[in-house]
């Protein structure tokens, strides 16, 4: 029991570490003062301003569509790649993995400029070029998330599925995929996160007139971040949190209700 208490305590501590800065931002979003170090009283005005700012809404839209699309594409390619790489011999294995990690180990600005030079040469810069760039730096995160799980897995169940008449694709989706699903999810979320967070690569690969939240926020750096951004972060955060809680607890509650009804 004592041990359990300590375990929970540790868990809370880590979660607190991850969330305290977020709490600071939430508080700032209600700060009437434009300065982040001066408390000017409680206000909701930033939320109002936010909702009427079409630029912010547009940037949010771009951020989300690029985020989800690039994460989805990266997850698809990364998943296939992880399966393929898992089957490789040692040398091609480390080579492929090593080269694949380049976008991750390059300073963002190098990746950004390299891609800008590249895109400028062959296509125009715009929405699509951001998307391609995001997919590029997202893939390694997906692979690094899925590959270890594949390596740890006991492949005998895959054989069993093949034996029962599943072709390799079906066997994969019905048996292997459910087992590696959690890591696919975390790969997807890592990719989504990296995409939403990126500034430098986006900045260099975007076309004129297109903004994501991060290019917008960076633009404001010099003159002070607008409190609307705190409000926006708080909103995003709150929405995701609510969705999350619903997704996790609604099935449970429903099950309980069903059980009750059955009795």
């Amino acid at each position: 029991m004592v041990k359990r208490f300590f375990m929970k305590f540790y868990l809370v501590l880590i979660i607190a570490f991850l969330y305290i800065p977020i709490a600071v931002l939430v508080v700032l979003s209600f700060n009437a003062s434009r300065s982040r170090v001066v408390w000017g009283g409680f206000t909701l005005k930033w939320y109002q301003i936010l909702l009427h700012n079409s630029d912010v809404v547009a940037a949010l839209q771009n951020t989300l569509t690029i985020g989800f699309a690039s994460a989805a594409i990266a997850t698809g390619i990364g998943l296939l790649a992880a399966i393929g790489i898992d089957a490789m011999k040692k040398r091609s294995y480390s080579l492929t993995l090593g080269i694949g990690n380049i976008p991750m180990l390059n300073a963002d600005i190098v990746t950004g400029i390299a891609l800008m030079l590249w895109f400028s040469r062959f296509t125009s810069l715009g929405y699509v070029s951001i998307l391609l760039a995001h997919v590029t730096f997202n893939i390694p995160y997906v692979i690094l998330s899925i590959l270890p799980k594949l390596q740890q897995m006991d492949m005998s169940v895959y054989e069993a599925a093949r034996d029962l008449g599943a072709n390799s694709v079906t066997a994969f989706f019905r048996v292997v995929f459910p087992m590696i699903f959690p890591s696919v999810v975390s790969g997807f979320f890592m990719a989504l996160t990296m995409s939403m967070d990126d500034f430098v690569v986006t900045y260099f690969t975007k076309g004129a007139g297109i903004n994501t939240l991060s290019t917008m926020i960076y633009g404001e750096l010099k003159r002070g971040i607008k409190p609307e951004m705190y409000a926006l972060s708080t909103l995003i955060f709150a929405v995701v949190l609510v969705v999350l809680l619903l997704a996790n607890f609604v099935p449970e509650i429903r099950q309980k209700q069903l059980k009750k009804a059955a009795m």
Partner: protein
Amino acid sequence: MEQAILNLQHLTKSFDGKKILDDLSIDIGRNEFVTLLGPSGCGKTTTLRIIGGFATPDEGKVIFEGKDITNLSPDKRHINTVFQKYSLFSHMSVGENIAFGLKLKKKSKSYIQDKIRYALKLVDLEGFEDRHPMSLSGGQQQRIAIARAIVNEPEVLLLDEPLGALDLKLRQDMQQELIKIKNELGITFIFVTHDQEEALTMSDRIIVMNQGLIQQVGTPVDIYNEPQNAFVADFIGESNIIDGVMPKDCLVEILGCPFPCVDTGFAPNENVDVVIRPEDMEFLEKGKGMMDGVVTSILFKGVHYEMKVQANGYEWLAHSTIAYHPGTEIGLYVKPENIQIMHKPVSAAQEVIKKNE
């Protein structure tokens, strides 16, 4: 065997430079029950994996209904397997595990439901549909693995020690059920077991393997009563295997005593291996048998007692339903027809056997 459904032709397989299967050829008839029998590590599972399509032989072919399927993928073969390690899908319930193959074949819901119920009944696990494989005991998991394979009604079913984790009672029930299924559905069974009695009871034909080589192929009675070499004799049941000399037909000299026997056709004074089953050793009063001996140990085996008898410098194994306690002096007798005479091994292949005795 014109009706062969499966021909294994010259299969050879090595791991890390060690030959695991060595030029293995077998023909298996339609609706036959064939058992692979052999010591641990002799290549039984490897053979099944090649038939199932999970391993490719280094050399040789697998012919199924006249077509070469050596390189066909497992899902395209009309063959199902019950794996030695069960390999149940841990993220599916028992019911979903069993339904897996049927759903792939797009069977109707009600058909699948019926099949699940039928299969669970067969393996004596009614009502386990919604259980999770991880919460089952070893034997229960094994039975689910059988159910999962059988509902697909394959043409050939490979079973890798499918009853290994079951108790005698259940094993016997399952043995009967398996044979019933085989006959009802007309499935060809290729069975791996390490249980000699199981092999003898269930099989139409037994293939005795050792170190990747086939030692003998034959019906259970053939194998048991007429082992072709000392390895088979020894492996297929407990035996007394002794060196002997044949001065002439129908007479063998063992440990200095002449024993009348029924074997002929050996060279005069040929050195031979003599096999006598322990249950064929008969106990008489001292002096009334072919040689006298002293009981040195006794072990209760349920159906009978197993005794060791020291006689003429050899420790004989003998079974009897009557207990003779250590120290008892007795006479040993063997009927001529119960004495098996075999040539000594000469070839390399047979040398292997000798080493394993």
